């Protein structure tokens, strides 16, 4: 009896260890869920004064006047969306090309060094892109690229409106270009993982039917991975929408809504970065947090869609990742 009791106690205390460990790890895992809700809830609470003051009109109002206490997000949202779209227009074909080159075309000895170089580009902090963009890229754009684009397209009907304004270098176009340079390696490395999941048999079957390499890629590899490809592009979009430092340096930070991509503008993130430290007064800070809430909702919707599209890649194919 005594001995049995002792054994029972020992077993219990040993089981306790497991119960505690499991509870601690589970708490940490659940913390991730709590975190996302806490972020959303905290932003809503802190933005409440501005939400009450401006309501939905906040999203459509173009003026941003801290002195008069009038705040609207339209110019910031416009800049965010336009600069991200410019980034994607450049980055989509380029990242696709890089990923195809590195997985299907490059000889083996090139894949690793070039792959590492692309990953290094992704590891450079965004502030470096911004710094470099302001001092090196924008003067170059203003000197060589923008006047040339204006000459070529400025007089075209409809499209011409996009390229009006002085070629200052700073503006939506430069922001979009810097964003694209940041997003290319990011999207390319996801696409590389994606293309590596395409079964070799499919590719060999395509060659066996007499395809050229390009036909194999365009008719087998890309259709096989198409949902994931769109997912990677959306992930890149999510990154571009919320990017702060790279954009803040080169966009010019002007609260104007202009159809021309050569004009300075602002994005949600760069407005936050520029104005937070000098924001005074409850409504000003609260309006900035409202802006942050808009960015939170915008990026999370895009990211959730992106992850759903990449779901198959991540959790079914391969299983390793």
């Amino acid at each position, binding site marked *: 009896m005594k001995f049995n009791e002792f054994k029972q106690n020992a077993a219990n205390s040993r*089981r306790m*260890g497991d119960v505690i460990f499991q509870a*601690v*790890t*589970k708490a*940490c*895992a659940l*913390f*991730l*869920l709590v975190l996302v809700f*806490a*972020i959303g809830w905290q*932003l809503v609470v*802190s933005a409440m004064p501005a939400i009450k003051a401006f309501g939905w009109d906040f999203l459509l109002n173009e003026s941003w006047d801290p002195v008069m206490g009038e705040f609207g997000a339209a110019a910031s949202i416009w800049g965010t969306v336009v600069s991200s779209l410019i980034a994607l227009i450049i980055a989509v*074909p*380029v990242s696709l*090309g*890089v990923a*195809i*080159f590195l997985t299907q*075309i490059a000889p083996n000895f090139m894949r690793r060094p070039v792959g590492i*170089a692309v990953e*290094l*580009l992704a*590891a450079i*902090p*965004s*502030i*470096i*892109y911004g*710094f*470099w963009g302001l*001092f090196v890229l924008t003067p170059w754009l203003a000197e060589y690229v923008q006047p040339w684009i204006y000459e070529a397209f400025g007089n075209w009907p409809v499209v011409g409106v996009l390229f009006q304004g002085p070629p200052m270098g700073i503006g939506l176009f430069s922001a979009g270009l810097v964003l694209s340079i940041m997003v290319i*390696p*990011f999207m*390319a*490395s*996801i696409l590389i993982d994606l293309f590596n999941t395409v079964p070799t048999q499919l590719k060999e079957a395509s060659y066996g039917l007499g395809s*050229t390499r390009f036909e194999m890629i*365009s008719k087998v590899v890309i259709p096989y991975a198409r949902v994931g490809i769109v997912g990677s592009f959306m*992930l890149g979009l999510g*990154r571009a929408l*919320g990017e*702060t430092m790279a954009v803040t*340096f080169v966009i010019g930070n002007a609260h104007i809504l202009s159809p021309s991509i050569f004009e300075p503008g602002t994005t949600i*993130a760069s407005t936050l*970065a520029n104005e*937070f*430290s000098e924001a005074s007064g409850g409504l000003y800070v609260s309006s900035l*947090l409202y802006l*942050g809430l808009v*960015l939170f909702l915008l*990026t*999370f919707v895009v*990211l959730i869609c992106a*992850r759903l599209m990449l779901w198959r890649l*991540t*959790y079914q194919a391969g299983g*390793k*990742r």
Partner: protein
Amino acid sequence: MQWHYLKRRIVNFIGIALTLIATAFTLFWLVWILTTLIGKGWQALDFSMLVQDTPPPGEIGGLRNALVGSIMMCLAGVAIGAPIGVLAATWLAEYGRGTKLAAIIRFVNDVLLSAPSIIIGIFVYALIVLKTGGFSGWAGALALGIILIPVVVRTSEDMLLLVPDTLREAAAALGAQRWRLIVSVVYRAAMRGMITGILLGFARISGETAPLLFTALNNQFFSMDMSNVLANLPMMIFQYAMSPYESWQTLAWAGALLITLSILAINLSLRLFWRDAKKGH
């Protein structure tokens, strides 16, 4: 018929050439950025930088305060984020494997992984800075820690799942409790990979600027007080780059070179020594 084959070969050639151009286009920026950094930062970078603090405009100074502040905040960030991340990954890979809850948490983690860091910054601002009434190094460390968590969860879970189940079964057959088995067998087997993940996360947070704007701010003077504004490299680069003084801009280039070289060195050495290590997206 002859023309048909020729056309296909031409299309093939053009397609391949385009991918080559895309790759060259990408590498072109990497080379341009690195040569600029080295060209502008190299002469400014010398040993005296490590012992002098950031100067007033026009005077000679260094980066000591920014460097010390950055290292302190990043280490504190790792101390906050890494344990939570590793433990959460442990639950996902061991206890929760195959459950619906684990799938949901993994999904949320992936979303957080690519969430803009500025969102985390304003979250910590609203949560801590607004309520305690001041910017502080601790708030900065917390923001960096939160950014680190999803990175560590992702890499650690991958590494834990690489440990073969036969090892777990062998330990269980010897009578080890589940937690004993995880701590003494699975962790040990996955240790190198998990440390690699944490180091990659460290490299990532050390260049983060946006969250520090709302939390740690910056400090012109040397300080090791985490409960007050703290100098740090990224914010120093931001402020000095935007300043009109040439001596400050030069210092910012030196800081930019220093930070980029350290991050690239960490990334490169980890990738060369540990081939399977994958950074999360």
